[in-house]
Each structure stands twice: as structure tokens, then as C-alpha cells.
């Protein structure tokens, strides 16, 4: 329980602490959360559930192994965000640090809450801080893009709210276990509509194909720390909700109804995202569409609902966080030093900054899912599972690897090699090297031993599959 409240306490501390100490506070406090969660997981028995609450009836918490993975991932992401931006202007602001910790609190709540209403509350709570961060620190010359982001998400959330109320009123239950046990087969088509409300919210957040239009614009205009938070951890809320809440609860008619529509949209997203990424000139936009493409594969895998794909989807979720932080950090480094991320204006950076070129290459290969990295094993099993069910879909899903190679190598090659257009380029600082090294280590470790994740989450995933 203290694990969840820690960020809230840090947020309050950041509001009142003097702003000269803000950098250190951000770094140390996020490291504290990370260490606390790692210590706490070492005492945790993956087969059990730990229940607790904060005195509010409607919001109760439970810790299971899936929740633990997400909690550690969240804490790690926040630590890396603070570390990677250590020399940036943004970390020095009290507002950023306080809001980021508030957001961390919301995210930890989403991943550990045990009641359906609590899930909605924390889901929305994360929206306020990220909105303020984007508004204050982003380069939104006119606020249209930001409004679009906020209203897309709010629209999805309201649909989810109707579904939450409907679900609670039909089943008269609100805790996770009771909802799992509740028999929804009797309500017939209403279940399809209720699940549709949830799916709409998730589709906006993930994002799935027709609901993705906020993504690239927001990522490009957002401050780099905000983009990292959005893509590395906020989008995972939707996948987590799908995996833990929606698919198990609506198991049966509703899931069968939505399975193929969602998989189709995901496959369209995989190819569409990749094709757009190939055509685009802006590094941040390329990475945004790459994210659309990668997440499509995870969503398609989750919709298949067998225990193996679920486990490897979790591996892939972790992997995507690693890739997202690494790539957006690289884009951020280029943007900060050269004030542009357009690949036509970049070139020959490898000559002036060899260390950056090396680590960027490592990250590029991780995102290409080279064997022995975490991406390979995850993508391999997800694609295999889709193949087993439907061969043609499997072939389409495979294109993610080929197309991914095209846009990633292009995004790497053009700025790094080619004619030198940028003479001055400050090479990496210690904090940036540390982030890249940690990410690469994690990716290789999980690539060699994905079992440490899959076995750990298997216990809590057992009850999510039939």
C-alpha cells in the first residue's frame, strides 16, 4: 500500500520543496519508488493476492503478479524519464515534477485497483497531469492539437463510464473476482454493447486504427518527457485493461463478437502505421507510427485469448516500453541539440558523436526485434499464435518485421550517416549513456530469459483464460 502512496507523497513534497533542488528530488524520489517496488516484489509470492484499501468503499486494491509487473514497469519508466531528462530544462520545474508524480500515482492505482469504478477513477486521474504537462511544456502553438487529444480520450472515457455503470447495475457486483464469477451470458446482446464501451476507450488510448489521429500530432508537439510518459506507460493502461478486466469479464458471446473486428483493425493498424512511417520525414512522427504498428500486434495477440499469447503479450508490453523510451529519447537528444527532427536536415551525426551513434544503433536493433532481444521472442510467439488461428492474418502480421526494418533503418541511417550537415553535436552525457545502457541490458536480459516474466505472470493470467 505504501508503494502506491509513495508517488503522492513525493508529489506533495515537490510542491513545497525549493525549486533549486527539483532535479535531485525527481531523480531520487523516482529511484526510491523503483527500489521500494523491487524490494517488495522479492517478498511477494506470485500465487497469492494481497488485498488492501484506503478507507474508501468504492476503491479497493489488490496486488497480483500481473499488477506487480506493471507497477515495476511504471516505476522504472518514471525513473528513466527523470534520469534521461536530467540535463533538460523541464526537470527543473516544480510543476513538472509534482505533476509527473501525481500521474505516477494514478498509473499505479490503475494497475492495482480491484474495483471496476476504481479502475475508471484512476484511469481518468492520469489524464489531468499529462494534459497539464503537455500544455505547459509542449510547443502547442495553437491548442487545437491538445484539445483533440483531450477530447478523444474523454470521449472514449465517457463511453467507458456508461459501460461501467451498466456493468455494475446488471451484475450488482463491483470487485474484480465477483465480476469474473458473475454470469454475463444471460444478458445477451447487452454484453456486446457494454464491452463496446470499454473497447472504445481502449481503442482511443492504444490507439487502434481509426482512432489514432491524435497520436502523431500530440507526440510531435509534446515535450520529450511527455511523449515518453505517454507512449511508454500510458498506452499500456489500455492493454492492461483489456488483458485483466475486459476480456475475462466479457468472456463468451461479447468477446466472440468483437474478436475479429478488433483483430482486423489491429492488422490494418500494423500495416498502415508502418507504411506511413516509411513515408514520413520527421523522426518523432516515424516513431509514433511505429508505435501504432507495434501495439497493433499486441492487441491482436491479446484478442486471441490463449494463455501463451497473454504471457508473451506482457513480454511485448515491457519491450515496447523499453523501445519507446529509447527511441523517443534519441529523437529528443537530436531535437534538443539541433532544434530539428526532420531527417532531410540531418546527416553525418555519427562522425561527430560516435557514442550516440552506437547506442542509437543498439536501440534501433532492439526495436527491429533482432533475436536475443526481448522484442524477438514476444513478436515471434504473437505472430505464431495468429498464424495458428488464421494463416492469412498471420502473413499480414509478419509484414510488421519487414516494414519495420525499412522505416527503422531509414530513420537511423539518414541522420547518422550520409553527407555531414551538422558539424556541432554534443556527444552523450553520463545520464543519457546510463539510460541507454540500462535499456539495452533489460532488453537483452528479457530476450535471453523471457521466462522470468512469463512464469511470474502466469499465475494471475490463469484465471483470465478459460
Amino acid at each position, binding site marked *: 500500500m505504501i508503494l502506491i502512496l509513495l508517488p503522492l507523497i513525493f508529489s506533495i513534497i515537490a510542491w513545497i520543496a525549493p525549486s533549486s533542488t527539483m532535479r535531485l528530488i525527481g531523480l531520487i524520489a523516482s529511484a526510491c519508488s523503483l527500489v521500494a517496488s523491487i524490494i517488495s516484489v522479492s517478498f511477494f509470492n506470485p500465487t497469492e493476492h494481497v488485498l488492501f484499501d484506503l478507507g474508501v468503499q468504492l476503491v479497493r486494491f489488490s496486488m497480483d503478479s500481473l499488477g506487480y509487473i506493471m507497477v515495476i514497469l511504471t516505476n522504472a519508466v518514471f525513473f528513466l524519464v527523470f534520469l534521461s531528462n536530467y540535463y533538460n530544462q523541464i526537470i527543473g520545474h516544480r510543476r513538472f515534477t509534482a505533476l509527473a508524480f501525481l500521474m505516477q500515482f494514478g498509473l499505479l492505482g490503475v494497475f492495482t485497483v480491484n474495483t471496476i469504478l476504481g479502475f475508471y*477513477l484512476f484511469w481518468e486521474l492520469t489524464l489531468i497531469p499529462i494534459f497539464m504537462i503537455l500544455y505547459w511544456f509542449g510547443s502547442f502553438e495553437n491548442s487545437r492539437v491538445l*484539445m483533440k487529444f*483531450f477530447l478523444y480520450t474523454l470521449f472514449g472515457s465517457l463511453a467507458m463510464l456508461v459501460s461501467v455503470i451498466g456493468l455494475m447495475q446488471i451484475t450488482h457486483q463491483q470487485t474484480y473476482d465477483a465480476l469474473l464469477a458473475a454470469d454475463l451470458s444471460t444478458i445477451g446482446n447487452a454484453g456486446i454493447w457494454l464491452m463496446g464501451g470499454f473497447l472504445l476507450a481502449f481503442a482511443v488510448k492504444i490507439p487502434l486504427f481509426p482512432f489514432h489521429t491524435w497520436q502523431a500530432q500530440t507526440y510531435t508537439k509534446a515535450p520529450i518527457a511527455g511523449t515518453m510518459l505517454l507512449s511508454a506507460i500510458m498506452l499500456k493502461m489500455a492493454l492492461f485493461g483489456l488483458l485483466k478486466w475486459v476480456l475475462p469479464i466479457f468472456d463468451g458471446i461479447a468477446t466472440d463478437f468483437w474478436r475479429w473486428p478488433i483483430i482486423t483493425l489491429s492488422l490494418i493498424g500494423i500495416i498502415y502505421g508502418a507504411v506511413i512511417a516509411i513515408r514520413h520525414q520527421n523522426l518523432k512522427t516515424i516513431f509514433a507510427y511505429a508505435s501504432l504498428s507495434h501495439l497493433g500486434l499486441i492487441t491482436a495477440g491479446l484478442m486471441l485469448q490463449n494463455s501463451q499469447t497473454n504471457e508473451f503479450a506482457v513480454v511485448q508490453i515491457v519491450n515496447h516500453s523499453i523501445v519507446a523510451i529509447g527511441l523517443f529519447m534519441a529523437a529528443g537528444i537530436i531535437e534538443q541539440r539541433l532544434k530539428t527532427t526532420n531527417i532531410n536536415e540531418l546527416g553525418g551525426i555519427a562522425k561527430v558523436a560516435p557514442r550516440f551513434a552506437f547506442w542509437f544503433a543498439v536501440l534501433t536493433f532492439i526495436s527491429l526485434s533482432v533475436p536475443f532481444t526481448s522484442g524477438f521472442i514476444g513478436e515471434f510467439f504473437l505472430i505464431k499464435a495468429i498464424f495458428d488461428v488464421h494463416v492469412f492474418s498471420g502473413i499480414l502480421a509478419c509484414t510488421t518485421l519487414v516494414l519495420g526494418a525499412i522505416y527503422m533503418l531509414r530513420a537511423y541511417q539518414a541522420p547518422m550517416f550520409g553527407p555531414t550537415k551538422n558539424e556541432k553535436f554534443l556527444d552523450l552525457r553520463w545520464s543519457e549513456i546510463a539510460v541507454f545502457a540500462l535499456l539495452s541490458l533489460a532488453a537483452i536480459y528479457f530476450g535471453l530469459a523471457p521466462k522470468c516474466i512469463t512464469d511470474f505472470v502466469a499465475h494471475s493470467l490463469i484465471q483470465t483464460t478459460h
Partner: protein
Amino acid sequence: MDSIVILFISGLLGLFVGMRQQTLLSLIIALGGIILAALAAFFREAYHTPLANYSNYIPTPAYVIILLCFVTLLAILGGYKRYSQDKDHIGDYFSLILFSLCGAIMMVQPNDLMLFFIGLEILSIPIYVLVGIEKGSALSAEAAVKYFFTGSFASAILLFGIALLYGATGSFQLIEIQSNLAFGIWSSPLAIIGSLFILAGFVFKIGAVPFHFWGPDVYQGASNAVLMYMSTVVKIAGIYAIVNVFGQVFRDSYLFWIDLISIIIVLSMFYGYITAWKQNSFRRLIAYSSIANAGLMLLALANTQNSNIFLFVSAYSFATIPLIIINNVANSDDDDLKNWEGIAWKNPLIAIALVVALFSLAGIPPLAGFFGKFSLLWSALPQIPYTVILALIASLIGAFVYLKLLLLALKKPSVQVKQSIPLDQIIALLITTMASLVALYFI
């Protein structure tokens, strides 16, 4: 009985003190009266009307009276800066507000149509005066005349409805009317027309479409200080009255009027929010937002067994009052939205209060506004699902409106000017913000 008597006496006292132009003493008397009235209601647990002596008497729930007193207290605190500038009339302001609060307390009692009408008049007449109290301003005079004429007209229609209902059932008591109607008098055209007239009168008072037209002009003409009282207490009293009458008396004809109410809800919300989008004047924006919120409040009628309006009206009041206070800081007596640009940078308290209030009005959890909306939707969804979904879409537009205001206020100015706020407004802002934040613990 105690609350009304205490309020009345402290109102009279305030008049005498006001003659000597002692502003602080007037404030203390007014606040003391309100706090004592709330305490009296709290210790009596339920409020008994002095004028009625019924066999089957339903007491007014104490928490409603406490909410009315509390909101009035905040409105007086927030407006004190403006009142104290006008030393000649300081006593008038406070006394009129206290008298009007007496009317509001009479209006929320769930027993008697006649008492309820008297309460409505006691509530309204001081407000007509308060709106027009700035004698120099043409806008204020126009607003007062408009409000007075339309308001009297609505009262007349309401009274006509009450008379028709009396003709049909032979009683003013809500319980008796209900039991008489249950015997099949619903086929009587008198009762049906009477109920429609009563509905029209009510809808006028809370300012929902199609009887909303007075709202924007009156809100614009009134000063910020009066608006704080007017936009909150009148709505609370009106919606409680409507829930009492329609939830209780006309329960058996639910299917007859619920469609009408649904249409009013949807029209009010869409009209209010869409029109608010294009406003350049803050008080007009608040007026249209209050039209939309009146529509939302009417959702409470959908479930007559369990109408859960308390959370929503308190959340609405605790979000509207800080906004008007901030407008007072930004604009003093003016209400141009241009002056709102960068207002959040003038004072950290303003920034926090503004963010909390606007997100609360937009209905983002975990703020009070969300729980208010949630409890309304919760009871209404099984009864009128399509209306609820339309209402949600409208509140998405509403989020647009509030967000636009928020972005305007958060825009970083080129030159930062610090501005201090007087102590009474700081207290009001702090209380409302805390109330919006801790709502989670009261559900």
C-alpha cells in the same frame, strides 16, 4: 423553525448595523446568523415548518438546509470585497441575502404547495432587488426589470397550476394530493394541466430550456457578488422543490411527464453548452453553463425512489463560486473574457482553484463534479438510457467549453504580474477547492 427565525432576526439586526455603515460588524452578524442557523438545523436533525401542523408531516432533511447555509456563507465571503466598497448599502445586501435564504429554506420543505409558493416568493423578491441594486448601471437596471417581469409571470403560472391542482384534489398537502390522484383523478384534465403549469414554473426558476431566456441577460447585469448567491442557492432550492413535487406527488403519472423531462434535459444541455462555446463574456458563459447544468440536475427526476441530487448540486456550487471569485479578481466588476488570459499566473492559489473547479465542472474524476454526475447517471441510466447517453455526449461538449476557459487562463503571459487576493476570498477559495478535492471520501 429555529433556522428561519435565526436568519430573520440576524437579517433585521444587519439592517440596523448597516445604517451605521459598519461593514465588518455587518459581515460578522450575517456569518454568525448563517452558522447558527446551520447549527440549529444540525441539532434538530430535521427541520419543522412553523406554519404547518399536519398529521403525517415529513421533516426537511437537515443536510439540505446546511448545504444552503454553507453555500450562502461562501457566497457572502466571496462577495464581501465588493459589498464593503458600497458602505451605504452594506446592511441591505446582507439582509436581503439572509431573507432570501429564509425563502429557500421554506421552499425545500416537502409538505405543502402553498408554503412552497410563499417560500418561492420570499426567495425571489430580494433577488430582484439585489440584481438591480447598482442604480448607476443601465445593464443592472435592465436585468432587474427583465428578471422581475419574467419571474412574476412564472410565479403566476405556477400559482395557476397550484390552483388547478387544488381544484382537482381539494388539498395543498403533497401527501393528500398524491393519495387523491392515485384514486384515478389522473383522468381529470385539471390535474394534468395543473401539473404542466407547475412544471413550467419550476423549469423557469431553475432556468432550463425552454424557459431559459432570462438567464444570460440577468446574469450579465448582476454584479459578481450577487451572481455568486443567485447562480447557486436559487438552483439548489428550485431543484429540491421540483424533486419533492414531481418525485412524490406525480409519482403515478411518471410515464406521462418523463418524456417531457427528457426532452428538456437534452435540449438544455446541448443548447447551454453549444452556446457557451462562443461567449466573450464570462458571466454569460456561466449563465449558459448553468442552463446546461440545470438540465443535468433534472436527471434526478428519472428515478423517483432514489433521487440523488445532493452531491451534484453541492459540487456544482463549489465549482461555480470559485470561478466567479476568480472573475472578480480578474475583472473586478467587468466580465470580459479577454482579461482572463494568463490569470492563473498571477497567484498560485488562483491556479489551483481554477484547475480544480473547471475539471470538477467538466466531470473529471476524482473531483466532486464527477461523483455528482455519476450518482445522477447511476440512478437514471436504467430508466432513460438514451437520454443519459445524449447527456453524456453533451457533457463532452461541456468539457470543451471549460477546457477552452482553462487554456485561456493558463496561457503564459509575457509579463508576469503578481496579484494578491483579500483574506475573505482566500478562505472561500480554499474551502471550495478542498470540498471539491475530498469528495471521494464522502461517497
